[in-house]
């Protein structure tokens, strides 16, 4: 005997509400974390002062205004944006690659971005028109995006599936790492230090010039991701079933890859390499909410933003007054979570 449609519908609605509640909870947690992030810092400025500085900047003294508007706010907002972008990219990547261990960095996107940054830092090479600090950003972005296009071209040559894509991606990682190695070999001690600092990933690069850019990028791309949610869910059931639902798998994969590379390139260009968010963010989202991409995509956005925001708090708190590059913190948090996820999966 099969359950009646009414029962199924009831169960579905229940699940729908449960997932909606979980999403709301994640959102609240992210907002709370953001508030803590802008509330804490090495100075004695208390939360009321922060709020006053936010809502009436003219009424507070210059120090408070600068601390809130030039230090705490840009770092905290950049943390949310980068976390959201990398985690969303990671969620899509895991689906189109059909590989739970994939992340936006699997296919050499970050290796390519690093090489672009190294070119700018070590030999001052960039496209005409880019100068100063923008050289690094423009290079990192162009190389990251270019790497994806190259990857797409390579894999369409042979018409390989996700397995081929991963292998080409690994090849690109090694290739760009070697290029970066050459740059490091050629670099002066000072340029090398500069590059190492860039590659560690740090929110101190956030400012009111680059935040709107990353926000704009995310705001344009995320709706397209969310609009592809049901197709991605279908792909999760397997390529065959997706096709039978009428999903153009090849096209879906290509467009998804473009979105992933734009999000990753944008985040990496502005803050450097931030490890593990793109891997752990989507995993946490799916553990909480399941594989339905209508929920897991927004959940990934929120969980990525949340983890990154927490990492930002920790990076300020480890050594009061000093800043530990946030890329180190995310890896330190990410690795244990990642290992726990693998072990958990084994057990099941």
């Amino acid at each position, binding site marked *: 005997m099969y359950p009646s449609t009414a029962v199924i519908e009831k169960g579905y609605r229940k699940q729908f509400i449960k997932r909606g509640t979980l999403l709301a909870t994640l959102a609240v947690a992210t907002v709370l974390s953001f508030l803590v992030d802008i509330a804490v*810092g*090495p*100075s*004695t*400025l208390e939360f009321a002062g922060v709020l006053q500085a936010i809502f009436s900047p003219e009424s507070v*003294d*210059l*120090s408070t*205004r*600068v*601390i809130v*508007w*030039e*230090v*705490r706010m840009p770092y905290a907002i950049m943390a949310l944006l980068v976390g959201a972008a990398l985690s969303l990219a990671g969620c899509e990547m895991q689906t189109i690659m059909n590989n739970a261990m994939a992340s936006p960095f699997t296919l050499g996107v970050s290796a390519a971005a690093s090489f672009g940054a190294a070119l*700018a*830092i070590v030999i*001052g090479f960039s496209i005409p028109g880019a*100068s*100063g*600090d923008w*050289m*690094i950003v423009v290079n990192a972005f162009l190389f990251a995006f270019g790497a994806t296009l190259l990857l797409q071209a390579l894999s369409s040559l042979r018409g390989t599936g996700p397995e081929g894509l991963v292998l080409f991606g690994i090849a690109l990682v090694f290739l760009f790492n070697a290029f970066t190695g050459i740059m*490091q*070999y*050629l*670099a*002066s*001690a*000072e*340029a*090398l*230090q*500069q590059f190492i*600092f*860039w590659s560690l990933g*740090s929110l*101190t*690069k956030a400012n009111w010039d680059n935040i709107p850019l990353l926000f704009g990028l995310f705001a344009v791309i995320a709706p397209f991701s969310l609009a592809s949610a049901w197709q991605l869910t279908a792909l999760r059931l397997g390529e065959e079933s997706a096709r039978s639902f009428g999903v153009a798998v090849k096209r879906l994969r290509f467009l998804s890859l473009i979105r992933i590379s734009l999000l990753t390139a944008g985040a990496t260009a502005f803050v450097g390499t931030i490890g593990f968010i793109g891997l752990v963010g989507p995993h946490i989202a799916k553990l909480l909410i399941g594989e339905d991409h209508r929920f897991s995509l927004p959940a990934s956005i929120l969980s990525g933003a949340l983890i990154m925001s927490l990492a930002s708090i920790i990076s*300020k708190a480890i*050594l*009061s*007054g*000093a*800043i530990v*590059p946030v890329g180190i913190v995310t890896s330190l948090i990410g690795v244990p979570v990642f290992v726990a996820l693998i072990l958990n999966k084994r057990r099941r």
Partner: protein
Amino acid sequence: MGKHPITLKAAALLVGVACFLQLQAQPITVTDVVGREVTIPQPAKRVILGEGRQLITLSLLVPDPVAITAGWTGDFAKSGGLLYEDYRKHFPALDNIPLIGTSGKETVSTEQIISLKPDLAIFGAGSHGPDAKSADIIRQLEAAGIPIVFIDFRLHPFKNTVPSMELLGKVLGRETQANAFVEFYNRRMNHIQGTLARHKDLKRPKVYMEMIRGAVPPGSPGKGNLGEYIEFVGGNNIGTILPGEVGTLNMEYVISEQPDVYIATGIATPGEEGLVIGQNVFTYQTQESLAKLATRPVVSPLSAIKENRVYAMWHLFYDSPLNIAAVEALAKWTHPELFGKLKPHGVLKEINERFLAVPLKGVYFAELKP
């Protein structure tokens, strides 16, 4: 009576020549800054520089430092900016000095060093090039019979600069020049140390130093490196909370500390991002780049900025016996009431006139004009 003095003079000359020859023939034994005893048969004529920028150090003692450099690392070419270009102009042979590596210690080829048949290798005790921790390179060179001396201007500048210069004077057969430099150096250092010692209850102004490195956010010295200079001249380096030699301070911390003095260091050449300062740089170029640093919103609340105690210096003083000029500048900026009369560019002028083979010209220190 008329003959006698000439005989005497001749005898004296003979004795002098004999002594000279004997000196030449006598092996030279020195103890280097890491405590190793090193003996070389005669003053070195072909040396390896483990850190290319130490060519500046050699040029304090030797009129043609390039002639005695048998091999070096490429770091001076990369970090030296327009000063390197001036060295090339003075010594066209500089382009022919073989490279033993590019910049980092891991790029150095021991085989290349051995094949150059040097009679001495000069390494820094702690440096970007091979240093006292490079056990493999040391072992291989010693096995090949190439003596190594360690000098140091970087790890412990105030302890090791004088012994390093004395040591170089001996191994290069330039003791007179080395002693003259040491005398000059000590006289200036003693003035600063002595003055500070007489003012024991001196208030130590808070100093915020930024090492400007191109487009990435600047680093600040912690307990070592240039932080030691700040403490030495009676300043209070707010970067001492950093765990390492250099790190990134949270700007919020810097603002809440309210430093009295702001100092930027850099090596950028005109047209590059960062602090434009150094050889053949014009005053207005340094002023422009320093003004740009001082008008960033994030430093606007600092009292150092509001009271215009904003200064700049060339970064590479920290790994050089020229550190004396940096010490004078920092002393002047930190305690103008004690050292207001010091002229750091005057120190460089005297060093140019008395010692350096290639004079330092341009802007090496700057005070932001209001």
